């Protein structure tokens, strides 16, 4: 069976992806550069992929946050870039975010709205494909037959939708500092 186990994928979809914007925002608030944020988040997903079991992780979002925090501290130490005057600043934003469960819950709701916003921003056919997937539970093959298009077209539309949400997860926090993101605007409008 190619790919990761359904159990692991569902767990990541439910607990980790919704926490990602918050984790990224915390890293940014702690002074991490964009490419560093990407690397750390990437690293965390590798660890989630490699874990034998995720059963013991009771609070996955907090665990995720802790993990990137540790990864970053290890890197900073390795790079010896901690300046003396910085030392009180380094992990405060992480601690703040870990404690703020209200924010986390709002984050999860925003995340669902983000899914809606991403799907809403896709071309009609692509949106129809996901409606059939979500509501009817059809496979890509069945969808292709239903719509009378090739399976390659369906697969390509699915890929585009994944790309769109990947981009939304990355861009959300980048724009927060300068102004509201497009996704957030859509949420308010809807």
């Amino acid at each position: 069976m190619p790919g990761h186990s359904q159990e692991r994928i569902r767990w990541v979809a439910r607990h980790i992806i919704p926490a990602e914007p918050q984790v990224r925002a915390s890293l940014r608030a702690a002074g991490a550069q964009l490419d560093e944020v990407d690397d750390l988040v990437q690293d965390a997903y590798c660890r989630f992929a490699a874990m034998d079991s995720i059963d013991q992780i009771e609070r996955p979002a907090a665990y995720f946050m802790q993990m990137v925090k540790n990864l970053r501290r290890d890197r900073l130490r390795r790079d010896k870039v901690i300046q003396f005057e910085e030392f009180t600043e380094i992990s405060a934003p992480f601690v703040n975010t870990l404690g703020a469960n209200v924010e986390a819950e709002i984050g999860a709701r925003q995340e669902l709205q983000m899914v809606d916003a991403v799907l809403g921003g896709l071309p009609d056919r692509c949106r129809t494909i996901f409606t059939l997937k979500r509501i009817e539970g059809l496979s890509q093959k069945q969808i292709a037959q239903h719509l009378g298009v090739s399976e390659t077209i369906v697969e390509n539309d699915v890929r585009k939708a994944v790309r769109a949400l990947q981009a939304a997860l990355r861009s959300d926090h980048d724009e927060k500092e300068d102004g509201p993101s497009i996704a957030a605007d859509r949420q308010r409008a809807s």
Partner: protein
Amino acid sequence: MDSAAAAWAARIDARAGEPLPELDSWLAADPRHTGALLRAEAILAMLAANPDVASKVEVGVRPAQPFKRWLVAGCGAVAAMAAATALFLATPRPAAIYETGAGEVQQIALADGSAIAIDARTHVEVDFGGTTRRISMTNGRAIFRAAKGDDRPFKVVVGAITITDIGTEFQVYDDPTTATIEVLVTEGEVRIDGPGQSMSLLAGQKVRVARSGRGPIRSGGEAISTREILRRTAWREGRLELDGDTLAEAIAQLNRANQVQIVIADPSLAGEELHGAFRMNDPRGFAQAVAISLDTAITERDGQISLGS
């Protein structure tokens, strides 16, 4: 990488259950690919999830007190009270007394703009009524940040020792088990006076002196690394910083700070060295992380967490 991962997620979804030999070679090409694929597959699962089911998504963060910088407190009402004290007690009465209990860290904002972070089980008295800004302390640990622009000297008195601030931040640890006082300067400079002797201590230095003031106060402090300073002051962020400390040592620190106690059921685990940062007030989170990294089990009963059972 994200783009390729998205394509693979779509392909796997299209060919449900069929073997995909090229996928294996893509995954083998770079260790990061497996994480990227997991993320892409999970994103697809999110997009494809039935919205009625998806609306029940919860984020696994337990209710907790709101946090302020420096102010990472213990549990429940005590923490809320500590927060209130820190935020509203801007003008302490002469000789205001602050006392912290187990697992409680307080941040005190003083009238002159100075600040004190007080660790668990520490007694601090602030008397700013006279010609000096005088703070006396017994037991425990605190970090002092003296505001500049006030002509009165800022003095911390512990036993027979007086530490006078010269525009700076420093930590004082009154260790009752050894009857010694450890002073660690994180910024600026302080002067330490005992009976008949005196020394100055600069940023990045620490010194340990007898509480009684007897015995020599060395002429210079011991230089310590930034990393070590981070570790030694991590408590005010509510963090337990481990860098090769053993599991037994880490648990001793956590148990001092918390009501919930951790015990090691499997003695062979006690010497395991740990690295990483944990929340001081989250013994469960710590135990879970340890259980995962040491590949062992945890059980909890009657406020006691057992590791390696």
